[in-house]
């Protein structure tokens, strides 16, 4: 899906639909859709190709975004709010605020990022399903 903006966001919509069918709480679904969406936009923006993997267990949702592409030279810098290398095309779509990775981190309960320049980037996010659901 790298480089193609036409369907950007479709994967996240599908994830949302699946999680709704499972019947998870709204705010959990919203967090999951959000982190998937920001990841998806980053793959489309900065990678050659990539995929989003979703795993649901009763206690939590795990979302992984794995891409082949340029990678991130300085992860600490990329995680800074406001840091962005987005080009004009990305900015025209309303992205490039340098907020994506921060958003992903703040909406996840567990966040892990690794990247290799010239190879690609791997994000792993875990969102806990609320305890209300576990007890019900």
């Amino acid at each position: 899906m790298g480089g193609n903006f036409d369907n950007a966001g479709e994967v996240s919509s599908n994830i949302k639909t699946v999680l709704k069918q499972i019947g998870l709480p709204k705010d959990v679904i919203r967090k999951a859709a959000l982190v998937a969406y920001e990841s998806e936009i980053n793959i489309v923006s900065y990678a050659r190709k990539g995929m989003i993997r979703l795993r649901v267990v009763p206690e939590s949702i795990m979302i992984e975004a794995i891409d082949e592409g340029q990678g991130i030279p300085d992860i600490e810098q990329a995680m800074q709010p406001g840091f962005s290398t987005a080009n004009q095309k990305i900015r025209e779509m309303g992205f490039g605020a340098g907020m994506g990775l921060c958003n992903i981190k703040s909406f996840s309960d567990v966040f892990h990022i690794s990247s290799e320049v010239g190879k690609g980037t791997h994000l792993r996010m875990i969102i806990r399903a609320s305890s209300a659901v576990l007890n019900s």
Partner: protein
Amino acid sequence: MTLHEIRKLLDAEVLIGEDQLDMEVKTAFVADLMSDVLAFATAGSLLITGLTNPQVVRTADVLDIAAIIMGRGKRPSQETFQLAEEVNIPILTTKYILFEIAGRLYAKGIRGCIEKVGSK
């Protein structure tokens, strides 16, 4: 306020969601940066924007936004229109600039979905 009242107030045209005008909203967020919307906008709010591409609808869908208001006379692109129909999110368009939209809504009791960043 209902979308019905908002349409009147903003002299807006309803492009999608004619059947959802009874929907009640209390909060709104104005932005042309989708990552800021994703960071701060809350479920059930209005999204007021000058952007018209499909990512506006995707963003609104991800966040369970109640309705999109496009200001400055902006209209959705063909793809944006189709996507909004698919996910069933109302789109209103008005010639008022974003400042006027926000001011008019605020005067009628609509509030920001957060007041300041970092406050929640």
